[in-house]
């Protein structure tokens, strides 16, 4: 550590440039990770808020809620307890006078079931009648207010916003919670249709009958349109950034080590143990990574604070810890590359040069 710190202090520009590289990569990793988690979260916010473990869909729906229809026959023998809830879903466009149009997902829910009861209201109350709705709080950011009367898909009937709910997004679209009757009307379903799906909080729940089939919620989430592709894209980018950081650290430290081979030979001639020189290189790498990552973390906090709420960014503690540990691991692996050269330094080279 002593040699590492002294060298960094003396060679400020050289090591400053490496720190700059590490900072930029770390910042990009934190930014992409936050966007990935933010976007993923907006896909599944509502599902997470329901603590759903299983979902029953029509087996011909390709595990898609918007394609699923369960008839009364399909649900003839279903077992609906306090952990289960029917849902009906339809894509809608929300319109109101003097407010921007918003694409949303209407979810029909039943008042005696857990999704209705578990709504976390940030303002207002739960909707009761056919025309009362609660909506995701992101609509409030877009100017919608309690008491606003809105139309859904250009309907003549107006629906009144009576409450704003937190964490109510699915597939990035805000959710409008309303009655089952409204869903039937908007979806224009036949009278024999009972629901689009059954959601259960019970991990052991299973109901397979006629066209109804139970799926784990993870399977359902992975089939959300674009969800897997989006996560894989972000994962790939973040993975590449880690590999790039590994290469940068390894190459820089290798070049620096090669440049000071004579110094290393002199120190070995003076009896400085190899472990001291190896320790200096590894700790140098750790110091560079830690400083670079700390600067990146500070800038990320600032970025997260100033970015508008519309940007789906979620800079979580998990991202901070995972990103920092990932960079540290890359730094340590990178520092191992020049170690072989250090161990092979011939102290006799110090003489006669």
């Amino acid at each position: 550590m002593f040699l590492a710190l002294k060298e960094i202090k003396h060679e400020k520009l050289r090591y400053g440039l490496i720190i700059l590289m590490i900072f930029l990569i770390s910042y990009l990793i934190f930014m992409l990770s936050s966007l990935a988690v933010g976007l993923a979260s907006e896909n599944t916010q509502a599902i997470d808020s329901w603590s759903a473990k299983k979902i029953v869909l029509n087996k011909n729906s390709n595990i898609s809620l918007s394609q699923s229809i369960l008839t009364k026959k399909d649900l003839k023998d279903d077992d609906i307890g306090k952990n289960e809830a029917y849902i009906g879903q339809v894509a809608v466009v929300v319109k109101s006078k003097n407010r921007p149009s918003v694409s949303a997902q209407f979810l029909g829910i039943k008042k005696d079931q857990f999704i209705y009861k578990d709504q976390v209201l940030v303002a207002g109350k739960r909707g009761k009648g056919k025309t009362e709705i609660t909506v995701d709080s992101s609509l409030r950011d877009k100017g919608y207010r309690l008491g606003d009367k809105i139309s859904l898909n250009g309907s003549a009937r107006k629906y009144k916003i009576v409450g704003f709910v937190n964490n109510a997004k699915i597939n990035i679209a805000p959710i409008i919670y309303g009655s089952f009757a409204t869903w039937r009307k908007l979806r224009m379903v036949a009278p024999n249709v009972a629901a689009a799906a059954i959601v259960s909080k019970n991990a052991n729940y299973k109901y397979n009958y006629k066209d109804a089939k139970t799926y784990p919620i993870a399977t359902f989430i992975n089939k959300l349109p674009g969800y897997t592709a989006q996560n894989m894209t972000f994962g790939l980018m973040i993975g590449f950034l880690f590999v790039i950081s590994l290469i940068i650290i390894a190459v820089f430290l290798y070049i620096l080590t090669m440049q000071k081979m004579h110094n290393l030979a002199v120190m070995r001639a003076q009896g400085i143990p190899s472990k001291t020189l190896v320790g200096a290189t590894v700790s140098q790498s750790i110091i560079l990574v830690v400083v670079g990552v700390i600067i990146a973390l500070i800038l990320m906090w600032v970025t997260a604070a100033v970015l508008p709420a519309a940007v789906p960014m979620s800079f979580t503690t998990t991202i901070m810890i995972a990103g920092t540990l990932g960079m540290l691991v890359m730094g340590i692996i990178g520092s191992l590359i020049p170690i072989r050269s250090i161990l092979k330094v011939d102290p006799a080279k110090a003489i006669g040069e």
Partner: protein
Amino acid sequence: MAVIELKDVEKIYGKGDAQVEALKDINFEADKSELVLIMGPSGAGKSTFLTIAGSLQKPTSGQVIINREDISKFSDKKRNSLRLNEIGFILQAYNLVPYLTVHDQFVLVDKVKKEDNLSKEDLDKLLEDLGITKLVKKYPNELSGGQQQRVAIARALYANPAILLADEPTASLDTQNVEEVGKLFKKLAKEREKAILIVTHDPRLEKYADHIYEMMDGKMSQKK
């Protein structure tokens, strides 16, 4: 009893037709408080002698005895420890660690060798004797050649070694400075009871030496 002794030492580099016999049947010894010169032209084997006497490499055959112990079969780790504790080097280009101040050059020794280094008082006295007390906060690139050499001497002595090996210490000095360095080495050998071996082709140092060995084509003979 000699502090350092080489018995029938040979060093051969390469194999077959490319084989070079760098040292041939070398017998040498130096006691404490002695200043010994090893002289000879370039390519005579002086540097090879220094690397073997300094345990930087092993001889092909023969014995290298330091403090009554044959070190020629020592492992790398043991030779490293020997160099740290018993041998001080003063190299041709002084070779101070460029990113350490003069003071930190000694701290580095403290970091790896916890015992038997010079006390603070002894170090202060040494720095005063060498006239570099005011340079302790400076980096090597802020020092003149002569100053760097004196710092290198102080660093080599700081670990309190029994043997001091110097490689062409007067290579880039004018006559006045050569005289000063000669006197300084003589004084260090006598007052600090070190065996000082100087590899050089500079005849201006001869008058300070207790013994002089000459090397030619890998062979050594005693001149004085």
